[in-house]
């Protein structure tokens, strides 16, 4: 099927098989391998991307469902060399170890902060409940998101 999708600000036309999962299309057709596959069942969140600004899990969405929509992946989050505040927060607060859950975590956290610029720790934990991390125990991830919230409010 023919689709037209804006990915990281760039208009992409493609002929994709109807059953092609979005995550496979991003990774294997577009080479955007920052979006990871962790469970294939929408539980772990490693594949989280933004669809029209909302965080969604790309392992259980068909690429064709994105026809006419806008996608942002972790590769499109930074503004050139200027990291997104959530990326900065993860770096500053050691919010990652093996890095595999990180792109999805960052996309979910960025979506949270877009809606709630100053969340409580509990709100951060709740917002990240759909993203699993096996390395950090989440605490430094919470610190990372808090750090990012501080950066965002500081720039306003």
């Amino acid at each position, binding site marked *: 099927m023919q689709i037209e999708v804006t990915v990281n600000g760039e208009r992409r036309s493609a002929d994709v098989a109807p059953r092609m999962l979005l995550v496979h299309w991003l990774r294997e057709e577009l080479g955007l391998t920052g979006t990871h*596959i962790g469970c294939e069942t929408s539980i772990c969140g490693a594949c989280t991307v933004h669809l029209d600004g909302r965080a969604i899990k790309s392992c259980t969405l068909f690429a064709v469902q994105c026809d006419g929509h806008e996608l942002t992946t972790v590769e499109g989050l930074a503004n050139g060399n200027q990291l997104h505040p959530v990326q900065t927060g993860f770096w500053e607060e050691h919010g990652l170890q093996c890095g595999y859950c990180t792109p999805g975590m960052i996309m979910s956290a960025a979506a949270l902060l877009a809606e709630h610029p100053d969340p409580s720790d509990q709100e951060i934990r709740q917002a990240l409940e759909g993203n699993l991390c096996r390395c950090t125990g989440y605490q430094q991830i919470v610190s990372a998101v808090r750090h990012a919230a501080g950066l965002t409010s500081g720039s306003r």
Partner: protein
Amino acid sequence: MVLRPVSIGARIKRREDPRLIRGLGLYTDDLRLHGMLECAFVRSEYAAGRIVKIDSTRALQRRGVVAVYTYDDLRGEVARAPCAARMDETRDVEHPLLADGAVRYLGQPLALVVAQDRYLARDAALDVDVEIEPGPCVVDPLAALEPDTPRVYRSLPDNVNVRIPPEPEALAAVEKAFAEADGTLSLRIVNQRVAPVPLECRAVVADWQEGAQKLTVWISTQVPHQAKQQIAICLGLSELGVRVIAPEVGGGFGCKLPVYAEECLLSWVSRRLRLPVKWAETRTENLMNTTHGRGQLHDVEAAYRRNGELLALRGRIVAEVGAYASYLGGAIPTFTLLMYPGCYRVGACAFELVNVYTNTMATDAYRGAGRPEAAYAIEMVMDELARKLGIDPVELRRRNFIAPDAFPYQTAGGATYDTGEYEAALDKALDRFDYSGARAAQAEARSQGRLVGIGIATFTEICGLGPSSNANPLQRTGTWESAQVRVEPTGNVTIMTGASPHGQGQETAFAQLASDAFGVGIDDVRVVHGDTDVVPHGVGTFGSRGLVVGGTALHMALEKVKAKAAAIAAHLLDTTPDRLRFDGESFSVAGAATDDGAERRMTFREVASAAHLWNVPVPGQEPGLEAVARFEPEGTTFPFGAHLCQVEIDRETGQLEIQRYVAVDDCGNIVNPLLAEGQRLGGIVQGLGQALCEQVVYDETGQLTTATLMDYAVPKATMFPEIELDSTCTPTPLNPLGAKGIGELGTIGSARCLMSAVHDALAPLGVAPVEMPVTTERLWRVLREAGA
């Protein structure tokens, strides 16, 4: 020479992160080679049975399918799957790369499909017609030891993988202690089987180059050098023709320590087809066929004096090996034997260990690997003894701790502890927790009928395994680690480490060591790892050994380089090395100045340049500035900790809330506190996961009911409060860094600490100690039965 610490001990943020936070890390499944084919496995749908037929006709008819392989294709071509821990040669069984006639566990690979893309490969795998005549299976390890039970291997007399009886002297000492004791305590203690669940599943890309006669294999592994050796052996290749690369590795936790059948098989297929092939495990395959952890059942008896002194321990440990002995799986429970006495003066200890085959996936290392099981058991003994004697559990521990001046201390478990200050760590934790205040508040809550519990765990573990005299010849490596330091002509530094990381942060911590050694900036150091063609032969990252063994090897290599740099500098400054001073950046001649008052000095970078330019040759030296070192530990290190937590269980619903968690850990000297905290926090939550929600469940027919992350509960962010960290520092004399290891410590203490709190919370109900995992449902049932 004076070392001026600049970055050691500093909270330096990670150099790995810029690529990872932008999605630019390269994991195995991210690789795309020209002409690469994708693989999918056909796996057994039964836990036990006889293969009647495997017919790949339909699969091969599908367009884009290149090949389907079964065991018949492998016959005579490959050896068994790698296994370095053959505990009892008479009970050793071969695990074939693909099933040979019989299937013995759910998901055992039957056939491999190779196709042009992964969708096709998976479609074609469904087209392979498999007929299996199901046979009787045994899943429960105790049932497996019964006389008339189904046998996993007909060639063996029973389901025992190894039976290790206690030493006769130990048994005699234990019997004497039991005879003299004031009382005894019996417990059955279960450590349920869990799944490691790294967020990145396993993945392999194999690429045979026919021209070069060379195989390159990218594997998500903790041990690239061991994988290289084992793949070469399995395929009958020279190791010169095998290169293994561990690119970015998305977590391991022990389950990427085994060298797997799939890794050998993909290598064979690539060589056969002369094309690159990839296999990326699905999560269901990961939960079903990546090694599990824990799975131990202890029957333990403790002998004690009325004053609470623990005299002796005896009993039996039944450990689940699974359907075959994985790479190191059979050896893991021996660490439980070794660490059983924990941080206490237990006079005598005698256990029988029975490793049992069942029709389930194999077990192997999982964060802590045998030590969490020991810590769980001895700490539960302490808690139950305290309850029985009416002594506060803190006080009981104080009465039994090994005293700080007793080290090195030989335990009844057979270990020699290096150093320990157990009471100091406990005191710090109690203070932070306000233990007496918390007990008073608990009494108040209990008087209102609330179920509040306070948990405690004081524990030690074994890290940095050595010496290599204990190494297993089948593993083809000792317990040392390698490091190479190569100073470039500019003075920038390339480090190569055999301790290939999977999230630990070696690229940062090891650069800190080099930065301080030579006075170069951290960003002028590059840490290379995980490529067997580039990195000197090494061992890998597991058992909390990265810094302790790998870091020490690096330290030694840095010292060698520094000594050579000093010799060069001395010659150029017209002095002798013993008169040189190194201030962390420059060599200068002690007490000597030029006529204009300036010191005679050379920076490290100037020395590096001179070492390569060599226009002024240095007698007795070669040009260049580099060194390789290997650290062979002469003994093991024993980090320790004291954890406290408070929980409340809702009487109506069984809902458990962790209200506080305080962890005081001691891993000796720390290179980067930020990374050490990350290891501790992650480790603690991983142990809490086992206590709270994780369990691999097979039904009686060997079907796995926890085969997706919808069924296997990995802990989530909402389940935990902010964990409070504090530390003490008791360095080890066994390595020049004074580091003890930190990767597994949190996990070893936390599962028991939480369960200690749960048992304490339920104590007023008089119920038997509830087992892990304490899901809401399990607690609700306990509360209903207790009539709460």
